[in-house]
């Protein structure tokens, strides 16, 4: 594969109102996020010639890139709706770079947003299907929790370790005015939060949110003359553990391992070169396993690694500095990219990582079988 290192850049980021936004529709959230990203980039809608969206919206799989483009009033040279669950976020940026590289388009809008907090949810477990619901396995939490149980068994990982992640994200959220969760959380509060499905407490699980975010990608060449200081894509990786989460070692060794290795190889960096990590934290456990698989510590040592303030601001690897999906807002990984870009532009105020020059971003989806990675620099 030809290296795309530093050939593409993120030149604009934006998001809608976050949290509970009953007054806006799903597309209403998305178009306000697009407007914010265009303003951030100093671009007009006519400067964009491609739209990539997530194919999931209100549970329906449709041509959302077309529906969104209609609402924005733009024709595009390239458009696609992707489906890799939570890995779609970083994957959109990768597909954008590949599409520009292929000559399909020049400037790409990547958008996702949904109404996780205020939409009507479908009743779970009522329909057909087999090999899961009949045994009472419901929701993403149950499936992901298998991984933590096995990790605890193999490596002695504890709830104190998971609590350290939840507390770190909450402390960061308190420095982020738009984060949903502003109340103090102690390790004791974590332990006292109810079981969603053992071994996951409530505070192991991400939020349900309304919100949308948009990211604009173009060539490094074009990015030079734009309003914002470009944030360059140094490394990209993607892996799908498609034989399934319960197969082999996949529940304790995520697609993150190979995806991260690809991204580090393209970037020519090692984990010690990374200044901040914005990791897909659908569940505390997935954040910890991703850091292991990326090589920030050895497999099995993630529990001690995330403890003692190491992943907090001021620590060795400030992680999810916006509060993440655990305490800021859940837009399936989109805000991880937004926060990474803002950190590298030095826009994060009280939660700014001093002199941040590099960031690693992860996306993780399909019940932990799809993984995507970006390494960014300023």
């Amino acid at each position, binding site marked *: 594969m030809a290296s795309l290192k530093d050939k593409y850049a993120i030149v604009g980021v934006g998001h809608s109102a976050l949290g509970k936004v009953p007054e806006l529709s799903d597309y209403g959230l998305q178009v306000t996020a697009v407007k914010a990203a265009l303003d951030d980039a100093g671009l007009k809608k006519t400067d964009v010639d491609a739209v990539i969206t997530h194919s999931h919206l209100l549970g329906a799989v449709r041509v959302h890139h077309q529906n969104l483009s209609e609402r924005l009033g733009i024709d595009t040279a390239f458009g696609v709706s992707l489906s890799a669950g939570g890995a779609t976020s970083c994957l959109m940026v990768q597909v954008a770079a590949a599409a520009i590289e292929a000559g399909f388009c020049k400037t790409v809008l990547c958008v996702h947003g949904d109404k996780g907090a205020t939409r009507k949810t479908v009743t*779970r*477990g*009522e*329909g*057909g*299907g*087999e*090999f*899961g*619901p*009949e*045994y*009472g*396995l*419901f*929701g993403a939490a*149950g499936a992901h*929790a*298998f*991984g933590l*149980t*096995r990790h605890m*068994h*193999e490596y002695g990982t504890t709830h104190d370790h998971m609590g350290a992640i939840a507390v770190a994200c909450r402390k960061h959220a308190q420095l982020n005015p738009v984060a949903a969760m502003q109340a103090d959380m102690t390790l004791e509060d974590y332990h006292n939060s*109810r*079981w*969603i*499905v*053992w*071994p*996951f407490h409530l505070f192991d699980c991400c939020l349900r949110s309304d919100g949308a975010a948009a990211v604009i990608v173009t060539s490094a060449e074009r990015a030079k003359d734009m309003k914002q200081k470009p944030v360059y894509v140094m490394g990209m990786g993607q892996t799908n553990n498609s*034989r399934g989460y*319960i*197969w082999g070692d996949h*529940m304790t060794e995520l697609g993150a391992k190979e995806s991260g290795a690809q991204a580090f190889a393209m970037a020519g960096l090692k984990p010690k070169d990374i200044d901040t990590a914005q990791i897909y934290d659908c569940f505390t456990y997935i954040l910890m396993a991703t850091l292991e698989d990326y090589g920030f510590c050895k497999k099995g040592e993630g529990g001690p690694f995330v403890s003692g303030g190491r992943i907090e601001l001021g620590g060795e690897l400030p992680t999810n500095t916006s509060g993440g999906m655990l305490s800021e807002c859940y837009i399936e990984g989109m805000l991880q990219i937004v926060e990474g870009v803002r950190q590298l532009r030095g826009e994060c105020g009280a939660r700014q990582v001093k002199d941040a020059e590099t960031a690693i971003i992860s996306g993780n989806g399909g019940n932990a079988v799809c993984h995507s990675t970006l390494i960014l620099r300023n």
Partner: protein
Amino acid sequence: MSDYAKPVPTPSEDSRIYWEATKNHRMMLQRCRACGAFRFPPGEVCPECTSEDYEWTPVSGKGRVFSFVIYHRAYQRGFADELPYVVAVIELEEGPRMLSNVTGCKPEEVRCDMPVEVVYDDITDEVTLPKFRPA
């Protein structure tokens, strides 16, 4: 049996024979005639070697708990009377893993790698679920 309130599996073209076997309190899986691998869930080609040549073969019904979770809330009304209940990934002696429940012990007694054996739960007149108990 019509008052059974939990989801009832809907057999597919691929899984019909599997569910017919459990109905008769037997566990049968597809075994590849080309490479010998057992597979689950059922499918038309072997995921190891892509051979389409297979035979439905009885398996031991013995295995171990690879991992498990414990539900403390009923996300579907039918499970309300069973709380807390265990959903486990069972690794069969023959290799494949499958989701099931662990019964016959308290949830807090379940451990990873614990040996288990199959038991059959006739949930309706037509459908029987294989579950597992400590062996």
